[in-house]
């Protein structure tokens, strides 16, 4: 059994979607959305990254073991971010004597 071969059309459509996402993120950055600017920016980046992973990196057609490996990586990345922020983001919540 050979690996799945995606049609050229799929790659071109994903390429165009990534280009549109880039244009959208530049446009959105110049709009005043308040705190939402960061949310919009990161949402577009995550969508773009997901398209690359699913289509360019063929994860859509890969084994469950590969998918599991990637999800484990994302899980540990989230631990890195959440535990670090659990420290830095909460430091000024309590007033400690002498500070």
């Amino acid at each position: 059994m050979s690996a799945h071969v995606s049609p050229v059309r799929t790659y071109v459509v994903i390429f165009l979607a990534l280009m549109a996402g880039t244009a959208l993120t530049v446009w959105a950055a110049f709009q005043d959305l308040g705190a939402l600017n960061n949310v919009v920016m990161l949402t577009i980046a995550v969508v773009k990254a997901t398209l690359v992973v699913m289509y360019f990196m063929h994860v859509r057609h890969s084994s469950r073991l590969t998918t599991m490996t990637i999800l484990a990586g994302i899980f540990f990345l989230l631990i890195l971010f959440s535990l670090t922020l659990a420290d830095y983001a909460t430091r000024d919540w309590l007033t400690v004597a002498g500070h």
Partner: protein
Amino acid sequence: MSDSHGHDSLPGLAHQFDSYEQQRESASLGMWAFIVQEVMFFGGLFVTYLVYRREYAAAFAAGSHHLDVKLGAFNTAVLIASSLTMALAVRAAQLGKKKPLIGFLVGTILLGSVFLGVKTVEYSHKWHEHHVPGPHFAFESTGVHGEPIDPHNAQIFFSLYFAMTGLHALHMIVGIAILLWLIFHAARGRFTPDNYNYVEGTGLYWHFVDIIWIFLFPLLYLIGRH
């Protein structure tokens, strides 16, 4: 049990694998394990960026305003285009089409080189503007909205800018070296629809480097632009 060096009737199939499919699956899984640890490697820099940006938001916005959005957006487009040519190179390898494979690999190298060329121009601007961290670093003491900022904190932004884009550029240079190696072997007809794992693995690596830039571009170039 006589065959300890390979499968005589199956060229390119290493002796420890039962089939091309198993070999391909193993190569892909190994590459993903590498990419996941690369994600954690870059993750350290991203989390550092997050912690300092929370602390010095105004200085980070001021630093970001000195980056060229047009060059950054152009480079993002160039890198996405190089991911397309890389994906088409892998497709050509899957179909056993040698000439398109080499053509798309060359295209990927050219686009990667354009990216690095633009990066060199940007770094050179930063050098002349004294925005390279170190003894010659100089920065204004007012932010985007006229608020006072500490130039030292803008220096932290530029330290992260050079560390993150520099590490990214280093990955691009390594990627181009691997692509040259691939072209050499592709020209000798080494890749077949059964065995193109080196092309697939290089593709995974190249797309991963593209993904890092997809996050770097908005985080570095587009802060507080409105």
